[in-house]
């Protein structure tokens, strides 16, 4: 059986604002940028707080639990590494402690499993999920698995 090639998947290109997210991901932590002054969470990361305009921020640890907000099942034409796993899912997860903070990811059967490892029929909006990190091209990226009852 042909194994899928995680290595050919796109890697995030880091910028100054987002780099801490990926550094914490490398430690297996899901952290979201928060304003040091007013405390508001913000995502995607940016240099200053749109609420109070402070440039001071910290990275707050999340539980890693959330719910599926929406999902798509992409089919070709796609970039080759993704076409190889299509149809797969891409999901948006709203975080349990901050539903307005949403992350794009993939629902998989286990952290190392391919992007198509969960049958499309099992996807549903509202499903409870838990973050799990995997390595792609030497970078730790979040994946999502269904929370066990």
């Amino acid at each position: 059986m042909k194994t899928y090639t995680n290595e050919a998947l796109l890697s995030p290109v880091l910028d100054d604002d987002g780099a801490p997210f990926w550094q914490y991901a490398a430690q297996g932590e899901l952290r979201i940028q928060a304003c040091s002054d007013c405390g508001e969470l913000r995502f995607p990361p940016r240099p200053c707080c749109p609420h109070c305009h402070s440039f001071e921020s910290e990275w707050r640890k999340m539980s890693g639990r959330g719910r599926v907000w929406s999902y798509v099942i992409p089919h070709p034409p796609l970039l080759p590494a993704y076409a190889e796993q299509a149809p797969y899912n891409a999901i948006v997860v709203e975080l349990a402690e901050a539903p307005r903070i949403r992350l794009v990811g993939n629902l998989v059967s286990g952290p190392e499993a391919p992007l198509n490892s969960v049958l499309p029929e099992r996807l549903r909006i509202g499903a409870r999920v838990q973050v799990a990190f995997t390595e792609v091209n030497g970078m730790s990226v979040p994946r999502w698995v269904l929370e066990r009852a």
Partner: protein
Amino acid sequence: MAGIKDATAVVGIGQTPFAKQLPESEKALACRAILAALDDAGIAPAEVDALASYTMEETDEVEVAKAVGLGDLSFFSKVGFGGGGSCATVAHLAGAIASGQATVGVAWRSRKRGSGPRPWKNTDVQLPTPAQWTRPFGLLRPADEIGMLARRYMHEYGATRDHLFNVALACRNRANQNPAAIMYERPLTREMYMTSRWISEPLCLFDNCLETDGALACVIVSAERARDCRRRPVYVHSAAQGLPAQHHGMVNYWNDDPLTGPAWSAARHLWKHADFTPEDVDVAQIYDAFTPLIPLSLEGYGFCGRGEGAAFTEGGALEIGGLLPINTGGGGLSEAYVHGFNLINEGVKQLRGTSTAQVPGAATCLVTAGEGVPTSALLLRA
């Protein structure tokens, strides 16, 4: 404040043929469309002193001006965000002419999207913010990004694939009346729609716009000058751009209400400066890169309430004779996808009374640019 209301008019439109592949370059197509629009207006190229296009337009002002023999330019402007900029090109020229910065403006778009590369295949330029949060996870194409919002919309408001089919069908029916449309001789059935291949579930092939080579242009002058032109003037009654607070482009997943897009903010400004209301709109040209943009735009521009856009499409509402005939040339779904410029020219045709799917007595037309990105819109009147 004088403002731009009815101060300017579109007096010339031009276009090239539309096809999956045209032999000429984008530059040559741009020149042909611009010269056709000026000829339609009866205005010499040397009189043009203003240009407007999209930041994605590859033929720049210097190339256009020297090729078609324009005069001294005193105003030139480019608008960002792909198809969101379409109506803003006309709006910028209307503003420039109404405020005395220029007298004859040309807006245009030339694109070989049919035979050229698909932008999403370029993996180099699209990975920094916000793409680092989306593309590595296989959310690669506009169809995937809008599909995500469409699925949520269907979940929240009970919209179905039949509603999206209503949109695709209305556009296809109008294209079947338009000899210039790519889909002129190709009718669409519900069976074809429901059994077509997926692009990004919940969106199928027919929920996606065409990939077209082609170019279009239009000419804008003051209302006074318009009265002496060869064609019946089509007045720019109101114009607006919209970039809502905390908007994130096509990946608008990170604010309180991702389904309230730029259409809502453009609409607020558009109607504030208009003498009529959505109920008075005779025909609409609504940006249709993807079918779900129609229900979202119907809501945003005030034709129905939040969540009612899908139901609005029922009972032939979007067809000729319906509540709001849309995309009467076939739109991006079935005429040509040239970043929405064909919607502008079709709006002009309707108000001249020369559309291939003419709405009898049409006197007012809404034209919109791409919803889901920073957008723009025009209210045109005869």
